């Protein structure tokens, strides 16, 4: 098959193709063509045909029996880093401390909700902690956890009813910084356009102390109905990294909020946030749900891997995440610098 240099480069750059190689002499020597050769030929031809026809089929990630689609799409499975030596704080509804996938881990808990322990009765906190820091080989099946050797700070800032106040959340951030968190993951937000001075102050002082804060962009979009939504508090703080959600085809999720025009209101990066499988309080053990809440701990866990590899903290760690992100053929308004990417092998 004769391809122009440009066509070859385009085919090579397309991650959906396994490989594009010169034909060489394989088919010239033997009479029969190998199955592998023909498959490569077919894939390249299909790709080029689709390009000409203007309808490139999207990439499609799905869970395998080994790992979730999100860990595949972000390169976590190929990263030698484990999060060892890095502290990750998750501020949410707490953690199911009885969950077998967290047995034997270095975990510190604190509840900021009056009258409640850090034990997660809601499920959300256990799910996001599972993504950021869950086990390498969970008992129930496929891997979903990223920084599987990180120290975990599980701060309960949202009660069993799923609600929490600024005072609880800010107290959790303050605790996490004091306890040495390299990353704070906050899968929470309010649909408020105006930047909060308190969160911006907190995010700025966290960065200065070497703690990166990542937060969910928000789920207030209804893209199918023409409403792209807006990034809310606290993710709209300039010093807090706002995380959008993409699906297994690396398309923007219908619910994932777009950048807003306020200073700091931009989406900074995207993570896997549709049909995300992770831990859930017993007896269920696991659950599959969607949201920018689920995309956020992917970024937090991967930030821990980067920090382990390079030693970067704060603003420098922010820059590494944004620089390493895989660019997507989507508006930066929706996905920022692209899909978060783990440090490669």
């Amino acid at each position: 098959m004769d391809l122009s240099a440009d066509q070859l480069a385009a085919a090579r750059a397309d991650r959906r193709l396994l490989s594009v190689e010169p034909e060489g002499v394989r088919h010239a020597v033997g009479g029969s063509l190998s199955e592998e050769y023909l498959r490569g030929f077919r894939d390249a031809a299909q790709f080029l045909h689709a390009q000409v026809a203007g309808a490139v089929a999207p990439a499609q990630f799905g869970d395998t029996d080994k790992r979730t689609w999100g860990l595949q799409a972000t390169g976590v499975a190929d990263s030698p880093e484990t999060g060892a030596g890095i502290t990750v704080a998750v501020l949410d509804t707490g953690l199911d401390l009885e969950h077998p996938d967290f047995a034997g881990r270095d975990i510190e808990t604190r509840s900021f909700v009056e009258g409640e322990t850090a034990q997660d009765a809601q499920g959300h906190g256990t799910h996001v902690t599972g993504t950021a820091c869950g086990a390498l080989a969970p008992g129930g099946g496929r891997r979903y956890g990223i920084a599987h050797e990180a120290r975990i700070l599980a701060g309960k800032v949202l009660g069993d009813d799923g609600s929490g106040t600024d005072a609880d959340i800010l107290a959790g951030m303050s605790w996490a910084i004091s306890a040495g968190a390299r990353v704070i993951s906050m899968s929470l937000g309010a649909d408020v356009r105006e930047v909060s001075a308190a969160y911006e102050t907190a995010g700025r002082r966290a960065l200065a102390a070497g703690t990166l804060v990542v937060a969910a962009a928000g789920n207030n979009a209804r893209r199918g109905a023409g409403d792209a939504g807006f990034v809310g508090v606290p993710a709209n703080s300039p010093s807090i990294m706002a995380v959008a959600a993409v699906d297994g085809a690396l398309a923007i999720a219908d619910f994932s909020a777009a950048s807003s025009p306020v200073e700091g209101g931009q989406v900074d990066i995207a993570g896997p946030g549709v049909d995300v499988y992770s831990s859930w309080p017993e007896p269920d053990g696991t659950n599959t749900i969607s949201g920018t809440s689920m995309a956020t701990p992917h970024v937090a866990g991967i930030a821990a891997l980067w920090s382990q590899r390079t030693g970067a903290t704060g603003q420098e760690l922010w820059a590494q995440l944004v620089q390493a992100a895989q660019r997507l053929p989507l508006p930066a308004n929706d996905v920022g610098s692209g899909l978060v990417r783990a440090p490669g092998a």
Partner: protein
Amino acid sequence: MPEKVTISVADDAVDRIDEVVAALESGGLQVDQVLRPLGVITGSADTRHVQALGGVAGVASVEPQRTFRLPPPDSDVQ
């Protein structure tokens, strides 16, 4: 009527946050927490005192406290 507020301390006043807290208390703030690593103070004050708290030396901003709420655990989008 008492109102919950969140107060951010200005960059140039973080080092003397205790003085800012004392001034806020004199101004009618009932202090709940002094979050030193953040330079943020939480508490409550009577509505008629809240606006004046913003004028206390070393205060960068006074905000009413918000409540955040997750969707129910059985909803598809979280």
